[in-house]
């Protein structure tokens, strides 16, 4: 009996100790699991315990959790180390304090890759360069010495240095940001940098080349242009941060501060870019233009992300971006020098209706189309124009390019300048052309007609080797239908009515015969006994529902194949923190 009581007392004391351990555990840090998780069996038990102790001490002193995880091979359930890191950190409730500040190193022996991730708010206080240095230190140790206990010591030391780089004020705004926004007075800045690379992603040579290109654009257009990179957007959206940079620094040379800024954000978890435009440039940087610029920039940014910019991909992408922007401002010869004072006119009937700047038609094809158009113009009181060009944007998309060509070259019949124009733009041989159909002065739904005509041209024009003549012929055929009925034909292949008739007939025939046959069949075995249920006798009780499994299937969404590209976030009108009006868009990478 005494032994039993003694044993119970011992058990009670042990239980109390366990509870007290839980009670006295640091409530800002989950101490119930290891900081050093060695699934690859690299460390001995003593080494693991020692490293774990030191990591816990680090966390409690610096108020930032520190975790290492060595994997023999990354599980197939995860697509990459980042996904595993995020899951591992969150699932095990790592992180110090409310903000869950922490640094996690994951090493995958199977692929010889490592991932160092900073979580929580701590990263906002520390420049990106410090993160790169921490990563570099760990990589160097691994390359020189392989993975062992020293890896944990290196991580400790690199993490200490990393944290020592943080600024005194968390989330401190950059020096160009006004302390008092309400009191800010906008003025034109002087001697402003055309490239500001706070994130340090460009080489000096790349920066110099960018400055040269930007200066040329500014001189030729009178619009300002700046490229700006930063390690953070300081809790602002990339669009607002870009606009703020432009606005508060006083960019913009004319009275409307017209111009644009390309902002690249290298903040972990917030990597991306944004083009913001203001003043006269807002009408130039339309959604389709932004999409097109982003389509060209994206491959460089993704390549840079994958290679840690080892090949200077970020800089190359921006240089290419600037070349594209330069094209944006090119004015064609027929464009009036003073659009504001332009007077609409009707051109001479002998003015060519087929204008092939891109060289997509042979001389015979051009002649044939001209003849057909001449005949149509005689028959119908409308104009018909076909334009091919090499530039895809000319200050706007293919649609506005078509409109401007039509308007400024005096096409159209009558007071309404009634007519249709097909504009095909192919930047270079082998590139898919952008195209647009525009109509004016016709009865009926203008937008619907243009959509239908565009749809019907897709299979002939939207190719690496477009059949422009075939597309032009179809365009003229559909234009004639509009002249006759006010409605363009839908994009229905000629075989469709025949196939639809056959299918509908077959279904109707089968349904008819089967239903008539069913009426003939009156004899069948009785399957149930519903009529013989005693009313009110049904009693039912639920014992339980058990989830057996969940099956998830996915289908890829069709990608847009229209002439505008796609995938960018775009805002047609928004304000900077200081109040200026901007438009723009961008993507993450």
């Amino acid at each position, binding site marked *: 009996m005494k032994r039993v009581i003694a044993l119970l007392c011992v058990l009670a004391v042990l239980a109390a100790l366990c509870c007290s351990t839980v009670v006295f555990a640091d409530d800002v840090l989950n101490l119930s699991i290891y900081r050093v998780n060695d699934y690859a069996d690299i460390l001995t038990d003593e080494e693991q315990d020692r490293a774990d102790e030191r990591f816990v001490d680090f966390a409690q002193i610096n108020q930032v959790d520190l975790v290492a995880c060595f994997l023999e091979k990354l599980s197939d359930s995860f697509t990459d180390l980042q996904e595993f890191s995020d899951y591992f950190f969150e699932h095990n409730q790592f992180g110090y304090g409310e903000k869950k500040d922490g640094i996690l190193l994951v090493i995958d022996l199977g692929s010889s890759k490592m991932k160092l991730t900073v979580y929580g708010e701590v990263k906002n206080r520390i420049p990106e360069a410090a993160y790169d240095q921490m990563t570099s230190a760990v990589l160097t140790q691994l390359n020189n010495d392989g993975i062992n206990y020293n890896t944990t010591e290196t991580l400790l030391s690199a993490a200490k240095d990393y944290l020592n780089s943080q600024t005194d004020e968390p989330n401190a705004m950059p020096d160009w940001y006004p302390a008092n926004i309400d009191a800010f007075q906008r003025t034109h800045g002087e001697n402003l940098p055309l490239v500001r690379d706070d994130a340090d992603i460009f080489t000096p040579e790349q920066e110099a080349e960018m400055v040269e290109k930007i200066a040329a654009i500014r001189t030729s257009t009178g619009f300002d242009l700046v490229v700006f990179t930063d390690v953070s957007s300081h809790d602002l959206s990339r669009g607002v941060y870009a606009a703020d940079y432009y606005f508060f620094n006083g960019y913009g040379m004319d009275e409307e501060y017209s111009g644009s800024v390309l902002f690249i954000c290298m903040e972990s978890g917030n990597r991306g870019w944004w083009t913001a435009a203001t003043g006269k440039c807002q009408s130039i940087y339309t959604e389709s233009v932004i999409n097109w610029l982003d389509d060209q920039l994206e491959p460089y940014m993704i390549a840079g992300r994958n290679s840690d910019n080892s090949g200077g991909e970020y800089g190359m992408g921006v240089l290419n971006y600037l070349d594209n922007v330069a094209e944006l401002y090119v004015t064609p010869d027929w464009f009036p020098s003073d659009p504001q004072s332009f007077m609409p006119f009707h051109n001479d009937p002998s003015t060519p209706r087929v204008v092939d700047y891109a060289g997509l038609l042979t001389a015979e094809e051009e002649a044939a189309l001209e003849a057909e158009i001449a005949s149509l113009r005689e028959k119908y009181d409308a104009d018909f124009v076909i334009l091919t060009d090499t530039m895809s944007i000319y200050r706007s998309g293919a649609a506005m390019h078509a409109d401007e060509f039509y308007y400024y070259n005096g096409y159209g019949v009558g007071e309404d300048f009634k007519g249709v124009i097909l504009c095909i733009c192919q930047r270079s041989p082998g590139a898919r052309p952008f195209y647009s159909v525009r109509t004016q002065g016709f009865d009926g739904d203008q937008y619907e007609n243009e959509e239908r005509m565009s749809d019907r041209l897709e299979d002939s024009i939207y190719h690496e080797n477009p059949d422009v003549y075939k597309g032009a012929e179809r365009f003229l055929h559909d234009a004639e239908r509009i002249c006759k009925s006010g409605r363009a034909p839908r994009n229905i292949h000629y075989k469709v009515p025949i196939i639809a008739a056959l299918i509908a007939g077959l279904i109707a025939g089968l349904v008819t015969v089967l239903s008539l046959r069913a009426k003939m069949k*009156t*004899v069948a075995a009785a399957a149930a006994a519903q009529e013989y249920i005693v009313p009110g006798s049904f009693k039912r009780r639920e014992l339980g*529902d058990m989830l057996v499994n969940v099956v998830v299937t996915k289908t890829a*969404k069709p990608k847009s194949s229209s002439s505008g590209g796609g995938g960018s976030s775009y805002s047609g009108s928004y304000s900077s923190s200081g109040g200026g009006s901007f438009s723009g868009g961008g993507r993450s990478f």
Partner: protein
Amino acid sequence: MESVKEFQCPACGAALAFVPGTQEVHCDHCGKDVPVSILQTQQQEAESRGFDWGDYKRNLDGEHLTNTNIYNCQSCGAIIETDATTAATKCPYCDSNVVLTDRLSGSLRPNAVIPFQIKASELPGIVKAFYKGKKLLPTNFFNSAKISKTLGVYVPFWLYNCRLQGAVNLNGTIVTHYSDKDYDYTSTSHYLLAREGEMAFQHVPVDASVKMDNNLMDSIEPFDFSKMVAFNDAYLAGYVADHFDSDPDAELPRADARMRNSVSQMFAGAESGYTSVSVRNNAMKMVDAAVQYVLLPVYLLHCEYNGKMYQYAINGQTGKIVGELPISKAQAFVFFLKAFAIAAAIAFAVCVLLQ
């Protein structure tokens, strides 16, 4: 010799026949109508108990179907040969209506009967209405088809009463859809639903005659069992009646299968919150089972067409008619072509107009 009962007119001694839709037997010779309730034999009064399933099982070697198939007509003395299941018939010589009471007595006596409501004179109209609207009948069917034989038969049935009680497991799924910018996702969650309960059934009919086609007898349902009355062999006068030749245990699985299907449907239909539900297994047991032996009225007709015999059955209480009908392939093809042409023309026109 076994007992033979003939119902004779008390006025003129001619044969009496039961009149459908009434509670009387009628004398065609003198026109006298006699209430059925008066026509009781002493044997019937003594044997009001009728068929009992438990007794029947205990006495399997006892009162069973007799094998004797020879009877004497009490009117003309002729020998009447029957098969083992006949309980009522006509004398082939003098056309008297005879009831073989030994096959309807004791524990073999039916518990109840639904008397005929439909008169034989109504049958041509019922058959004509049956043919109406059957567009795939051969065009010469109406002229060439001949009704060769019409027979009013009391068909033996087992009526089962019981409760099904126990567990039913079902499979349930919940389907949700969601998307991100690159993919459309479909998530299907599979559940196992454990349920238990009970349901009572009354008068589930299964025919007790081997020579009657099961599907035909199933198809002439439903009968209105509220009109069922205590058995009186007077109802058989003028009709053929058959004795059961398939015992209730042998036919129970048919009734059981129907009842289980109904239970499964009720359980599946009672679920909510699931995209789809199906029964995984039904482990219910039958309790409090009881069976009645009843005679139900059926007219059987045979129709000869193009050398083939087609059999129809008409519910002698409700007039519902079922049976196999010949299908003309030529007619089917004509209707197919008509529907094909109309639908094809409409579809073509719509496509052209949309252009």
